[in-house]
């Protein structure tokens, strides 16, 4: 396999390979996808570690994300400052966690952060309402939405404090083996 690429140094590529679930080729392919989002912003030479952030509007327009109800939350969770603008590191991180090789615990951790809209490390009733609203897109009435949130807290809240902690969430995920295959974005 020839090292003909000039985008990264050998050490950088090795580091990416060791820190994500991607092979060298996939990392290069992802880099070119990232670069395509903002060709004038993203340089073709990353050996000097430029500090480049692609704004959220461009990330959210990617075909894999543009119709996802949670695209804004996903971008916010994986971006550096929580505002949705992503560096290449964030971009690779995001797709690495959402790939099919990431283990369940890692995915559960990030899924928890995505569903935690107010970033208080707990999924409270308000977070659940936001989630359900985004999922059903106005298909349910307000009364039904609150009924659903109540039911979810009933089912999943193990320590009965009125909100879901990370443990409750992970416990619930253990009983949902489909989670691993549904929390997956193919790129």
């Amino acid at each position, binding site marked *: 396999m020839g090292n003909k690429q000039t985008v990264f140094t050998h050490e950088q590529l090795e580091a990416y390979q060791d820190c994500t679930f991607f092979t060298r080729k996939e990392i290069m392919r992802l880099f070119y996808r990232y670069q395509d989002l903002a060709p004038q912003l993203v340089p073709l030479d990353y050996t000097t570690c430029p500090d480049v952030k692609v704004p959220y509007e461009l990330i959210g327009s990617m075909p894999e994300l543009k119709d996802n109800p949670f695209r804004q939350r996903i971008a916010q969770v994986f971006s550096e400052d929580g505002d949705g603008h992503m560096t290449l590191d964030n971009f*690779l991180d995001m797709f690495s966690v*959402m790939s099919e090789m990431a283990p369940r615990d890692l995915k559960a*951790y990030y899924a928890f952060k995505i569903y935690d809209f107010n970033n208080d490390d707990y999924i409270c009733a308000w977070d659940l309402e936001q989630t359900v609203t985004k999922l059903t897109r106005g*298909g349910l009435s307000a009364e039904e939405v609150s009924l*659903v949130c109540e039911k979810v807290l009933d089912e999943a809240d*193990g320590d009965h404090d009125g909100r879901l902690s990370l443990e409750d969430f992970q416990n619930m*995920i253990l009983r*949902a*083996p489909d989670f691993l295959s*549904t929390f997956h974005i193919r790129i």
Partner: protein
Amino acid sequence: MLSDDHVNEIIIQVENVSSGVQSHPSSNQIFQEKVLLDSSINMVLSISDIDVIDSQTVSKRNDQKGNQVLRFSTSLNESMSQTLHSLECMGIDTPGSSHETVQGQKLIASLIPMTSRDRIKAIRNQPRTMEEKRNLRKIVDKEKSKQTHRILQLNCCIQCLNSISRAYRRSKNSLSEILNSISLWQKTLKIIGGKFGTSVLSYFNFLRWLLKFNIFSFILNFSFIIIPQFTVAKKNTLQFTGLEFFTGVGYFRDTVMYYGFYTNSTIQHGNSGASYNMQLAYIFTIGACLTTCFFSLLFSMAKYFRNNFINPHIYSGGITKLIFCWDFTVTHEKAVKLKQKNLSTEIRENLSELRQENSKLTFNQLLTRFSAYMVAWVVSTGVAIACCAAVYYLAEYNLEFLKTHSNPGAVLLLPFVVSCINLAVPCIYSMFRLVERYEMPRHEVYVLLIRNIFLKISIIGILCYYWLNTVALSGEECWETLIGQDIYRLLLMDFVFSLVNSFLGEFLRRIIGMQLITSLGLQEFDIARNVLELIYAQTLVWIGIFFCPLLPFIQMIMLFIMFYSKNISLMMNFQPPSKAWRASQMMTFFIFLLFFPSFTGVLCTLAITIWRLKPSADCGPFRGLPLFIHSIYSWIDTLSTRPGYLWVVWIYRNLIGSVHFFFILTLIVLIITYLYWQITEGRKIMIRLLHEQIINVSPLGSL
């Protein structure tokens, strides 16, 4: 480090923050307060953590909390690592771990003694940003190299091992890259997943997985049996008419396609060339094929069981799963909207089910329901048995029928009838739904599945019985080729029916649903039925591999064509599924099905063939032998005369051929299984106790 006053100050800030965070999540101020909050909790708990560990009490809850905060404390490490990173880019070497928190140091300490493979796995699984992972990796590597520097003399061995493992890892990476690049249909699968979701995708993944089996079997067969046979092939004197593609007789009888064509001699080219014993090659190649399939199935099954098996004691929360298992693979706009609409409907149904949950049925209603089930089961079993009997008598009658009628297309009658049964009877079974009422729609799906499986397995079973008891003992010349031809015809007819169904049947259903009776709408892809068809075809291929070595190649082509036809039909004639389909659990079940009645049945059939049946006298690699297995016996006998191979004879006589060995092996396996079972039981008890502990310790739990 922070002074005590500072810590107190921050703890006060902690209380303020936790009470009222409802505003815009990306507000910088709240974020900064969270920074301090996290770092303070970090400090406080790090001290308590050390205390806990020092006093050697294992308090799982504390540890858990420590871990939780470790994961959430991105900020402090991040700001430090950002400076590290920029310094790194400028090429300045930064000092090691003076700024890392205590948890970070513990993590590094735990990573250093691991092997490089485990270390990389652990780093990848860390829920940290890329920066932090990179720095972690850098620090651990530096520490590791410092350590190996210190113990340099003794360990040129270890350095050798390190370099070997590094080279191995690199070669594994490049191999997986190559495999990924030739991985089939990535883009098509992405589109299917984008429009229809994970459940329909699972069918196509299953098809691709079966294709891999067939490709492997074909390559093995081709290299070890077919190519040598080509070198000594006799000229084919028969005529070729187009009908052979469907009937498999005629011209094809004297080709490498069937068992009968293979020579039983030892092929030798030239005077001093190596000799190639065709008998042994045949039996060993087929054996190797099936053994690899066996182990591959076993490992896949174990992997799926491990990931997807839920302890049935823990309930399965209905609505929570609907909310949190949104299918992120769906990417097309229309599909997403449809999915959202379907989800609303499903949630509403779930809510209304919950309200009705408590209505109990009267005794009369229970009785009617129970008798409806009984009647339905009796009728379905009766229908299955009737079909089997019909197939058996038709097969028997077929032999005489063929002797009197000379129309070459007449051999297609049996496969045609079998395919019709496979098409019509499942439709009859799904009509039972009108009579039987199930509480949960899931039970309906399972019952339908079980009935269909029973039907298909009985048909294959009755055909095997017919082949092994009637055809093999009928005294026909070259009965193995006859069986091979039968299987080929069955497979081909099944394939033709499937194609016709895809292009004609589903198309008609779409016209009916869209234009004539618009209330029906488009149909949904019936995953269970299609997967069962795949399993049925694969079972036939595995049975036929002994009698028709080219069958994996034929199945390969058929699967290839079927992928494209199903894909085109899917895009044109179907709508995305409206109900949640438990893809992982169903896949586990289907792979288990592929292993348990399907593959084990094949092994039984072949075992009976090899150990009990007499090969035909005039054709094939085993001609003239009293039993197929005698080829192995005579090989062992010839080996025992050669001094260099006595160890093989020893292994055969004392390990494979001896009862004591298998008895001891079975005993050891049973003991290990029992031990593992006890360990699992113990862990279940511990999970329950810990769960209770969590509930009891929580502030509201004792209410």
